[in-house]
């Protein structure tokens, strides 16, 4: 496989960004955002996860579309589980 060799500097930059985002999420959790706090926390976590996936796991540099399809499918299926289940819980009190 023609692997693209990622420069060490890139990895270290990503690491530093992850550290900063960790600090951010810890600090933000001490601010009262009401209902928004869960969304913000998940958004920051997702940014961190995306950095790990793209750079540490090398997804940014692979040239196989099928791998991307596999990853997206996994996330999409998790979404199916959560969305359709919450469709039940969220609507139980409607009637």
């Amino acid at each position, binding site marked *: 496989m023609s692997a693209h060799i990622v420069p060490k500097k890139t990895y270290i930059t990503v690491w530093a960004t992850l550290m900063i985002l*960790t600090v951010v999420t810890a600090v933000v959790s001490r601010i009262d955002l009401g209902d928004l706090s869960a969304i913000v926390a998940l958004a920051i976590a997702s940014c961190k996860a995306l950095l790990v996936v793209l750079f540490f796991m090398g997804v940014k540099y692979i040239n196989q579309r099928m791998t991307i399809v596999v990853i997206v499918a*996994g996330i999409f299926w998790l979404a199916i589980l959560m969305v359709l289940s919450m469709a039940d819980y969220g609507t139980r009190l409607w009637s």
Partner: protein
Amino acid sequence: MSHSPTVAPHNPALQHHFADMEQQQEASMMGMWVFLITEIMFFGGMFLAYMVYRYMYYAAFVAGSRAMDFWYGTINTIVLICSSLTMALAVRASQVGQRKALVVLLIVTMLFGCAFMGIKAIEYTGHWRDHQFPGANFHFDGPDPQHTEIFFSLYWAMTGFHALHMLIGIVVVGFIAFYAWRGRYGPDYHNPVENVGLYWHFVDIVWIYLYPLLYLISHKHTG
């Protein structure tokens, strides 16, 4: 042997049902990613349970989260992110053929993993002592203790399965480090290192989500 008539010289790591190393490496990497999405769905079931009960019993979850040790959780997050860095650098070392760096980085990754497990052991002991393990001995002073027991059930289940995966990861990285020390990996063949790296990063990602959901639910200044 059912090869093509002339057996060309090939990489000793080539498995003979593959036509060439490229096919083997592509298959190997695809297999690892397919395995990782099974892990997404495995942990996903617990994340659903968490979502449902946090939606139903928010106050109980806030109380439970406040009882977690913020610093242990945060340090563990930092430890895992550092371990991901060393793991990524290890994979890079295998790609460019730096055997010594590869072995050192893999061992450092293991050490970070052990540090994580050590801190979790301290946390778990503390929770156990404070009657925060669900069951007959559970006791919690808070606004909704009965439902906080559910929070702790999910805490123990989710971090427990995560820790189990970490443990397996540490052992497997250990094996890879041993084979690396024996010179098995280089620019021509380093799939196992990459695949173990993928697994390790995945376990890190799970923790990246567990951390805010379990430790940071509500640490308002007023709390």
